[in-house]
């Protein structure tokens, strides 16, 4: 890395899909300020939202029901939380689990006693029960047994929990599913899509998870108070901030990116447009330069704390740490004060690993909320138009050439290129990935083999009359309707398609998970296999009792240094918190 001037291009061109829409890069994405949970926190802050806790019926063992309510965009929403006893041998993060430590519903309005009783009975059953349109989101979470028990023990003895354990885990509980949009009878997205504050992608889900985070913090303090009595202390504020909500993410999330091409396109377009806008800045203000350099230091510290078991990911993290340290050695305010610094920096970044490049993307966006936060309003989608079959075969062939030429070299007769198949198991409809040449079931595979289907369409288009109406071609080839629709969509929406063979042996499914999770705002990516990962949401974010007054931004790349409470001594432990229905001072 030389630090030499690398060009002063000020064009607003977005990075091309051929660069961005590759799984290896998508699997290196970091959350940005356009991530969904960041958008939510800003909204909660802007509306000075106060969270109430009208119901707290948690017994001395930590089991029972609680309700949290807030007003957002002129509507009231409530989290109904149910904490249940769970045997250790029943604790599983898999879809096939049948019981959980805690379960939740986001309720449209304030639940009355009848609603609370109904939900207390049904929510712990999750997929096995049916719900009404008053339930907007359904979720469940399991304890991080090691950390939860440790925190209870420490607080009950009047001391703060161990910094190392807090840093290593980062959450008291992890969600294992967050269902929205009509699943199991809950409200369809159309019920809330037009509401201020919930219209953006996954805002209701993010709100639910944020409230769950607050519940887990209250729960651990409650159990500690019961155990320790007057000696017990609450979590130090910095510790509360550092604890997020974990999540176990499996294959169910991967098909989403493929099944919602318009949504994917809009997310990617917003991200790349934000990047282009910032790169077009000729002379940044001093505060923006300072903000970036501070963020770079935080990212370096964050990466130093980022330890995972997965060898592939740990190797990438090691390289990333080296790269960021190297950048920090030559990059300074003087370099950034020269014209078009962000464009020059992105040009320099091409020498870095994909993780390095995408870290810098996240960092340079961070100081520019005033330039890019409006793009959050462009990230939703109603699904896009139907296939237009009034065009000619020739027109579709041109679209295919423009958007899918990359599929042509793939040899699907080679076993490696069709090694896998995506399917849904009879076992509680758990999404799984199978080995085509070893396992049964490929005849029921999910249609995620986009490249193979488009290639087959390409072959038949090549022998058809280019002047023929597409409608006639599809009457002769009904099997190509899906691929034809994908081609038309991709030709008009350049970021709609992942440009990789998703059934090939080289596909790493966890790259798809990380991409989607980055848009959610998830951090601490911790893959457990090539198709399962843990992450943390809302780590460092303002909590329920402070979102109205705390800085809604400035907590990206949270670090251990932000947890400053230490491990003991009364001077480190705040006084006991309130026992009334509020969540602390507004």
């Amino acid at each position, binding site marked *: 890395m030389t630090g030499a001037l690398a060009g002063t291009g000020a064009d607003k061109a977005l990075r091309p899909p051929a660069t961005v829409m590759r799984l290896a890069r998508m699997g290196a994405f970091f959350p940005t300020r356009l991530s969904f949970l960041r958008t939510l926190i800003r909204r909660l802050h802007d509306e000075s939202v106060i969270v109430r806790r009208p119901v707290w019926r948690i017994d001395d063992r930590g089991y029972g029901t609680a309700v949290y309510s807030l007003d957002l965009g002129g509507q009231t929403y409530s989290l109904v939380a149910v904490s249940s006893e769970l045997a*250790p*041998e029943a*604790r*599983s*993060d*898999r879809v*096939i689990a049948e019981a959980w430590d805690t379960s939740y519903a986001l309720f449209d309005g304030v639940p009355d006693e009848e609603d609370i009783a109904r939900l207390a009975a049904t929510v712990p059953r999750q997929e096995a029960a*049916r719900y009404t*349109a008053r339930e907007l989101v359904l979720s469940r979470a399991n304890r*991080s*047994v*090691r950390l939860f028990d440790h925190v209870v023990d420490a607080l009950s003895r009047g001391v703060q929990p161990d910094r190392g354990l807090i840093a290593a885990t980062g959450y008291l509980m992890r969600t294992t599913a967050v269902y929205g949009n*009509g*699943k199991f*009878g*809950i409200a*369809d997205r*159309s*019920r809330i899509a037009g509401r201020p504050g919930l219209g953006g992608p996954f805002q209701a889900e993010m709100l639910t998870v944020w409230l769950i985070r607050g519940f887990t913090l209250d729960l651990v303090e409650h159990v500690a108070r019961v155990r320790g009595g007057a000696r017990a202390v609450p979590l130090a504020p910095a510790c509360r901030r550092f604890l997020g909500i974990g999540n*176990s993410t*499996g*294959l169910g999330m991967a098909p989403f990116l493929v099944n919602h091409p318009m949504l994917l396109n809009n997310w990617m377009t917003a991200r790349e447009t934000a990047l282009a806008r910032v790169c077009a800045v000729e002379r940044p203000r001093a505060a923006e330069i300072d903000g970036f350099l501070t963020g770079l230091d935080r990212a370096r510290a964050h990466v130093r704390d980022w330890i995972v078991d997965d060898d592939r990911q740990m190797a990438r993290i090691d390289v990333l740490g080296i790269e960021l340290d190297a950048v920090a050695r030559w990059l300074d305010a003087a370099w950034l004060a020269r014209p078009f610094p962000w464009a020059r920096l992105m040009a320099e970044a091409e020498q870095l690993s994909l993780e390095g490049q995408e870290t810098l993307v996240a960092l340079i966006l961070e100081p520019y909320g005033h330039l890019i936060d409006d793009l959050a309003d462009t990230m939703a989608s109603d*699904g896009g*138009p*139907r*296939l*237009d*079959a*009034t065009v000619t075969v020739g027109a579709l062939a041109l679209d295919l050439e423009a958007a899918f030429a990359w599929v042509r070299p793939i040899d699907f007769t080679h076993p490696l290129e069709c090694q896998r198949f995506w399917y*849904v*198991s*009879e*076992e509680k*409809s*758990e999404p*799984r*990935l*199978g080995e085509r040449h070893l396992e049964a*079931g490929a005849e*029921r595979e*999910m*249609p995620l083999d986009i490249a193979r289907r488009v290639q087959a369409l390409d072959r038949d288009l090549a022998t058809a009359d280019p002047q023929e*109406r*597409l*409608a*006639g071609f*599809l*009457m*002769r080839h*009904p*099997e*190509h*309707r*899906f691929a034809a*629709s994908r081609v038309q969509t991709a030709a008009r929406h350049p970021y709609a398609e992942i440009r990789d063979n998703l059934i090939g042996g080289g596909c790493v*499914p966890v790259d798809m998970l990380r991409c989607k999770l980055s848009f959610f705002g998830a951090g601490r990516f911790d893959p*457990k*296999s090539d*198709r*399962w990962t843990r992450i943390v949401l809302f780590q460092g974010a303002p909590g329920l009792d402070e979102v109205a007054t705390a800085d809604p931004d400035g907590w990206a790349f949270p670090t251990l240094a932000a947890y400053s409470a230490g491990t003991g001594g009364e001077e480190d432990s705040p006084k006991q918190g309130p026992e009334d229905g509020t969540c602390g001072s507004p």
Partner: protein
Amino acid sequence: MRVSLNELQTTARKAGLGTGIPVGAADEIGHAVLWLAGNGEDAVGAALAGLHDGLQVAPAPALKRHGAGWRLASVAVAIGGPGVVDWVFSTQPGEPVALSEVDAPTLLIGLIGQALARSDAGRAVTVFGAGMSVTVAADGLSASLGVLTPGIGLTLRLERAGRGGLVAPPDGVEVDRDAWRELAVLAARTLVPADAASRARGAGAGDIDNE
């Protein structure tokens, strides 16, 4: 029983896949069912009428010129319906497309309705035959359909302009429990039987999480 719109659409789509029809047609059936439900029609019944065993995926016979319009002998709507809709959209307004035998007429009308709603071109299609006549627009029907007998002949005619916009979707729909179960059985054909190996390997996670 009440089901959400998303459940209705995804189950109908999966039922189509489970019956063996191509995914492109299954997608359209999911949208058609949604559109019919939003217009107060028996959406599940319409889907079941079209998704019967014995459907064969094969190239549809070509539409033949017939007077000022077109004619097709018979249509298995679940497979050929989307193609018929495409063809109607490709005609000149007023040009009739006559179908001698339609196995699932309500489903066909649903396919037309969803295609109009998703095409955003301000068109309408008049459907008439067997003593009925109804105009289908993006946001609804000019009259309730009633029970349409399987196998009737219908003529479709593209109109120059139709009502625009979409009706506000309901908060889920009431469906007949037995019919829903029947649709769900078809949808379950998309699931792969599990065994110990797939349970252990397929999702990439362990069974117990007590860390």
